[in-house]
Each structure stands twice: as structure tokens, then as C-alpha cells.
């Protein structure tokens, strides 16, 4: 018998009906979130970024420039081979190889978001399962996993990432795996702490006295109670992951060129920022705005799940 979130859903569905419905803690949190103007604005910005990333080929079609195409016309590169500033043809200017900064920035959003979501999902999945296991089972399992968390947290991440990528070569999947492997420990630590206190609650004893299995207690009784913390941490983790991905790219450990991504673009623009500020400004601004929006939204989510917030934003 497999137990997972589908069982939770089933347990809820089993009594679904419109009769007299209590507002779930989720619904309450969502209602609070909707009243938070900053969070809603951030969410709007995030949605715009996502839409733009999805519609990247449209930008390419409108400008007529592919993300990796190099133009050697007078509009694209100066006679001395330097990038050209924003113009009617290249709205955000060009880079050192005569490529369209706008189109590359838009395509870069895809990479940032994709890595941000995938690596965060991986991080949270590993962290939740291991944190839940350590906290709930306790004993030797807990000791071993806690030590493992300590070890992972003390590994110099960038150094190991450099070493790993130099062996395997840069790729999307290695970026996601590296970030996931080095970030789960903090999630696991948070979840474990929560579970340690939750497993002493009487409802866990009640589940036991009904004959519930350990796995069922972990996933049906305890997991929903740590989920709000996990969600808060997840929304705050996405911008961190995006920055880490940009950092790896900046160090040349991101995606192999000529793939457009923000960290890589900033890295390429290093030697040109005095003569071609647009080259670094646009991808840099995109990175800052994206992480800022995610961070502010994450703060809003954290507030929304904090029951004390109700008094702060009362009607």
C-alpha cells in the first residue's frame, strides 16, 4: 500500500461536499495573502516574468533576431567591434558578439526559472523526506541523518561545484543536481525540528491507537502540519537558487555557450561595462527584479501562514 499526498487528498475528498465547510488553514492563509499588497504586486511581476519566458520565441519573431545569432551589421557592432547601444533594431542594444541583448535576456529568463523551479523542487523533496524520516523515527536513523546534514552544510559548495562540473562538463541537469544536493540539508533541518515536536502531540498517539502505520502517520498526519513551513521556505528558496545558478554561470559552470542565461551574460559583459553598460544592465536588472519579486512574495507567504498576522491585517 502506498501512502502519499494522494491519500491525504482522498481523505479530504471523502467528506467533500458543499454542506457546511470550515475554512481550512490553507484558505485562511490564502485570504491573508490576498490582502497583502506587496505580495500581490510581486506575484504579478513573477507572473509577467513567467509569461515573458514562455513567450520568448515571440520576442525572437518580432525582433527577427535569434538568441544565439551574431549580427555584424553597423547597427549591431561598431566598426571597432564594440557592442552598440539600444536602437530601433536592437531595443536593448547588442553584446560583444553582436547578439540581441533583449532576446538573450528573455531566453535567459527561461533558464533561470527552469533551474529555479527544478532545483528547488529537488531540494524540497529530498529535504522533506529525510527531515521527516529523521525526526519521526529518531534513534540511530536520526543520528546518522543529522550528521549527514552537518556534513553537507559544511562542504564548501562552490569549490565542489567547480570540481564536479569540471569532471562532468556543464549542463542543465548537473546544475540542478548540484544545487539540489547542497541545499536539501537546511530544509531537512527545519522539517526535522518541526516533526520532533509534532510527533509528541496526542493526535499522533491517537493515530497509533487506531492502528495507523508509521508511514501513514508520517505522511497523512504529520506532513500536512509541516507543509506550511515547507511552502514558506520553498518560496524563499527559489530566488536563492536563481542567484546560485547565475553565480555558477558567471563562473563558467552554468550552461555551455552559446546558451543565453543571465549569469553567463553578466560574466561576458564584465570587460565591456564601461563602454557598453546596457550589456550588463539589462540581464543584471532582470536578475535583481526576479529575485526581489520572489523574495517579497516569499515574505508575504511567510506572513500569511503566521497566525499572528491576522491581527496585523485585520479587516
Amino acid at each position, binding site marked *: 500500500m502506498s501512502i502519499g499526498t494522494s491519500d491525504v487528498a482522498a*481523505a479530504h475528498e*471523502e467528506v467533500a461536499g458543499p*454542506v457546511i465547510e*470550515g475554512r481550512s*488553514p490553507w484558505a485562511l492563509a490564502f485570504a491573508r495573502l490576498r490582502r497583502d499588497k506587496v505580495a500581490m504586486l510581486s506575484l504579478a511581476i513573477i507572473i509577467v516574468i513567467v509569461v515573458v519566458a514562455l513567450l520568448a520565441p515571440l520576442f525572437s519573431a518580432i525582433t527577427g533576431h535569434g538568441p544565439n545569432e551574431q549580427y555584424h551589421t553597423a547597427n549591431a557592432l561598431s566598426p571597432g567591434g564594440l557592442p552598440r547601444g539600444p536602437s530601433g533594431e536592437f531595443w536593448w542594444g547588442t553584446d560583444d558578439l553582436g547578439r540581441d541583448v533583449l532576446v538573450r535576456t528573455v531566453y535567459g529568463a527561461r533558464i533561470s526559472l527552469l533551474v529555479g523551479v527544478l532545483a528547488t523542487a529537488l531540494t524540497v523533496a529530498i529535504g522533506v523526506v529525510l527531515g521527516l524520516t529523521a525526526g519521526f523515527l529518531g534513534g540511530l536513523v536520526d543520528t546518522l541523518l543529522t550528521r549527514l546534514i552537518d556534513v553537507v552544510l559544511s562542504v564548501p559548495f562552490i569549490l565542489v561545484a567547480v570540481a564536479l562540473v569540471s569532471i562532468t562538463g556543464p549542463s542543465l541537469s548537473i546544475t540542478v543536481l548540484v544545487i539540489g544536493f547542497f541545499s536539501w540539508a537546511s530544509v531537512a533541518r527545519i522539517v526535522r525540528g518541526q516533526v520532533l515536536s509534532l510527533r509528541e502531540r496526542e493526535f499522533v498517539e*491517537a493515530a497509533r*491507537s*487506531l*492502528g495507523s502505520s508509521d508511514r501513514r502517520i508520517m505522511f497523512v498526519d504529520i506532513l500536512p502540519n509541516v507543509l506550511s513551513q515547507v511552502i514558506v521556505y520553498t518560496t524563499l528558496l527559489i530566488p536563492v537558487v536563481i542567484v546560485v545558478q547565475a553565480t555558477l554561470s558567471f563562473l563558467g559552470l552554468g550552461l555551455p555557450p552559446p546558451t543565453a542565461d543571465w549569469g553567463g551574460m553578466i560574466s561576458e559583459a564584465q570587460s565591456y561595462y564601461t563602454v557598453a553598460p546596457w550589456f550588463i544592465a539589462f540581464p543584471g536588472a532582470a536578475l535583481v527584479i526576479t529575485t526581489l519579486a520572489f523574495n517579497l512574495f516569499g515574505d508575504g507567504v511567510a506572513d500569511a501562514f503566521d497566525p499572528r498576522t491576522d491581527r496585523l491585517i485585520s479587516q
Partner: protein
Amino acid sequence: MTRTTTAEGQGNTGSDEPLLRLRGVKKHFPVQSSALIRGEQEYVHAVDGVDLDVRRGETLGLVGETGCGKSTLARCIARLYDLTEGTIELDGRDISTLSRREMRPLRREIQMIFQDPYGSLNPRRRVGSIIGEPFAIHDIGSRRERKKQVQELMELVGLNPEHYNRFPADFSGGQRQRIGAARALALKPKMLVCDEPVSALDVSIQAQLINLLADLQDELGLTYVFITHDLSVVRHISDRIAVMYLGKVMEVAPVEELFETSRHPYTRALLSALPLPDPDLADRREQIILVGDMPTPVHPPSGCRFHTRCPKAQPDCAEVVPPLEKAKDDDSADHLTACLYPMDPDERLSRARATVADSEIVADDSALGGVS
């Protein structure tokens, strides 16, 4: 799938055979000692050799001060804890060594109602799914049948069945205990272990819940082990009462007999703390104030557990563990006392003087001088 009707539980097998039989039940918890000092592993003797029978259809009240091990005993009965020693027989079958998996089918027989109406319900789940959880665990019925059964259970315990989609936070403490009761009754158990089910509730609500439990007992033929430190509650609901002190049963007797002719000095002291509604009677009554704290269950006293605080302790009380047996000839067969020097009804404890070396003067007669 239909389950056995409740009336059947009373009729089968010999009625003399107790539903639950505890023999020498012990539960010791290891004390977390600091890693630096490597001494002998110490244990909290939470339950330390309990013999009890619970008969079909009766309510056995389990009383005692905080820390006497009554909740631990409850959890041993419900097999939430593994026993350190001893046996628990349910319907003549030893369940004390069953693994969790083997125990699962027997969960239907013994269920538990918990003390904390806030902690015992998962705050993230809807009431319908909390009450329906036993069906989900034991894979009983289809989804639609379960919902119907959940609503019937809610009605049975006096909740509005239309509230099945609400969350525990939407209910009051008393209603939550009803939810807990409905969940415990879902599997139609023979026995309910109630661990201080009303102590967290308002007095007015306590009565409602106790009456509900009494009605359910009549209706479903349930057997209760009812734990409380509230003597008036236990007097109201119980058929027999067992008094616990430091992990041992001091005295067990039918309710009225215990209240009228208690034999054990500890029982006497406990009963004297019961408030009486009649002020004249209350004034005339002997009030026994025990001196000192309950000794630590890590190093329980030798002999009779109570000898360090007993007003009439004698030297041999510190050496001989008194067996739980009939103390005087005129006691009924159900009245068992673990005391070497059982008391007569008119004996006054405050006049007694302990002669055991390590006990202090422990009584005060407020009937004469009044409480200061």
C-alpha cells in the same frame, strides 16, 4: 461490510471472565543520563506491578495524584507502550507481547479517548476525515459508506453531522472531546480507555460529556477504564474504583464501599480532599493533609510505596510489600487493599503516629483546629 452488533459483546463467553486482566504489569522508562557520568542506567518506575481485572460492561475508575502512573497504565492497556513486564489479557488472549502488526486487528477492541481536546485532533484535517480515519486505516467500506458512518457517529455523540467538513479549530473543547469519542467509537470497540477525558473542560461541559459517555455505555454495552484525578467525577461514573500511588494499586473496591469503608490510609487521605457540599458535614469530617511530596518514581520507597508519608506506618511497612488482598472479613470480595495495617471506618488517621524511622509526622487534624 457489517460489523458485529454491540449487544453481542456482552452475551458471549462466560460473564465471570473479565474482559481485561492485568497481571504484574510494569512499565519502566529509562532516564536520560548525561553522557559524561557513566553510571548505572536509571529507570522511572511509572507503573510497577499492577494487577487489575476489568469486567465486561463495567466502568473501572482509576484515580490517583498526578504522576502516579495512571496515564502510563492507560497507554499500556491501549498498547501504545510496550510493557516492561507482566501480561495483559483481553478476552483471555495475551496481547502484551503482540507486535504492532499483530495488534492491528485488536485495535478494534480497545480504543482510547485522550485528555487534551486540542492536542488529540490533527489541526490540519477536517473532522469528517478525523472520525473516518479508523475506517481508512482498517480499510472498511467504500468512500460513500464511510461518509454515512461518520455522520452517524457524529449524530451518536451529539454533533451536527453537517459539520463534517469543518476543522477542529472551529469547535469548542467539549465538542472536540465528542469528536474524539466518535473517532474512538468508529471501530465499535468493546472497551474504551478514557484518559482524563473531562479534566480539560469547563465543569458545565464535563457533566455533558460524562452523561454522553454513560449513555453510550448503556447503548453500546461498552466497558470503560476511566482515568481521572477528580473524585466526584469518578464516583458518578464508576462501578469500581482503583486507587493508584507511585505506580501501584493501593486499593480497589466498588464505589460506595470505597467511599464508606476505605481501608488504605492513602485512600482515606485522598477522599478527605473531596469537597463536600454540606458545610456542617465538611467541618466534622476529618481532613488529612499529607506532608511532603510524592517520592520520585526513579527510586521508589521500599516496602509499601506509601510508608514515607503514611501517618500510621510501622517499621515493617518499609520492608514488606503488602499484597493486594481482602483486608477485613466484612469487606466484600471485590474490595482489595494493599496495606499491612488496614484501617477501620472509625479510625482517625490524624491520631496515628508513625513509628517508621524515615517518615515524618504527616497528619494534621483540621476537624479540631481547622485548617490554618
